């Protein structure tokens, strides 16, 4: 059972899914993430563990990377979603996996991706009144940091 077999199975149910040739990740359109997560979570594969969720700032769009893991078939697959920079919204997976609660808050805090109907989407690592999203490539450091280096 390899990642490509999983990709074929997903391809049957969700035709717009493509496979990234360099990294073998399954690239998924943003609005179908809930359906695919439900499909993966089903009894047959039981990818019931979202191991890691992160984002990559590719300047014109932000790539969300979901890494699922299944204890049953001992396989780890990577799902990618490309969100255009101007509309950074995506469904939240908190009702599938409890671990996404903090993962998504961290991605919101560092990248600014809004997760719809997330229990309490607010900053987790930075102070709540922090301006800007630090891990963006075009992020300029706050001025008090410069002032501190006397």
């Amino acid at each position, binding site marked *: 059972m390899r990642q490509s077999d999983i990709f074929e199975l997903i391809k049957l149910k969700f035709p717009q899914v493509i496979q990234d040739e360099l990294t073998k990740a399954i690239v998924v359109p943003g609005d179908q993430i809930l359906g695919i997560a439900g499909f993966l979570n089903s009894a047959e594969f039981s990818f019931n563990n979202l191991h890691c969720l992160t984002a990559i700032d590719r300047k014109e769009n932000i790539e969300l990377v979901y890494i699922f893991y299944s204890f049953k078939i001992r396989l780890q697959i990577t799902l990618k979603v490309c969100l255009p920079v101007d509309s950074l919204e995506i469904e939240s997976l908190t009702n599938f996996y409890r671990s996404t609660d903090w993962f998504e808050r961290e991605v919101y805090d560092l990248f600014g991706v809004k997760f719809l109907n997330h229990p309490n989407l607010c900053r987790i690592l930075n*102070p709540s009144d922090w301006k800007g999203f630090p891990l963006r490539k075009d*992020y300029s450091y*706050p001025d008090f*940091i410069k002032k501190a280096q006397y």
Partner: protein
Amino acid sequence: MAVIEKIPGSQLIHKLPGGGIVLAASGSVFKWAKSSSLWPLTFGLACCSIEMIAAGASRFDIDRFGSGVFRASPRQCDVMIVAGTISVKMGECVKRLYAQMPEPKYVIALGNCAISGGIFYHDTYSVVKGTEALGIPVDVYIPGCPPRPENLLFGLMKLQEKVKKERYAAK
């Protein structure tokens, strides 16, 4: 302002023959008492806190210098050992803790991060560049990342010397 002048009878003591000796003697007794029981505030931020605990454990035994009693609340502490990186979010808490300590209080900056931000000096957006940047007066700097427990003990000895040398006054 020297506290001694505020004692009502202190002018009287100066006029008595040998009064100065009594005042000086009591000053050095207070300084000796203060310096040999500097109670630190448990304030472990990052990696240096593990070395501070190791200094408090049985091998390096900070108790030999009288400051083995790690108090949790700043009300009962004399010295604040800032052990680790101060992030922006933690900055106000450090300032508030320093303000809430009773008056003869001292600060030891343990490790490079507490001195100047250490290896997190460049390319960071959330690290305060040292305890001085928070406006907290630091008495002893202990460089190292993390400094070995012997360095912390030596820094404590330096602080004790400093406490003994300073004029007895509210600091």
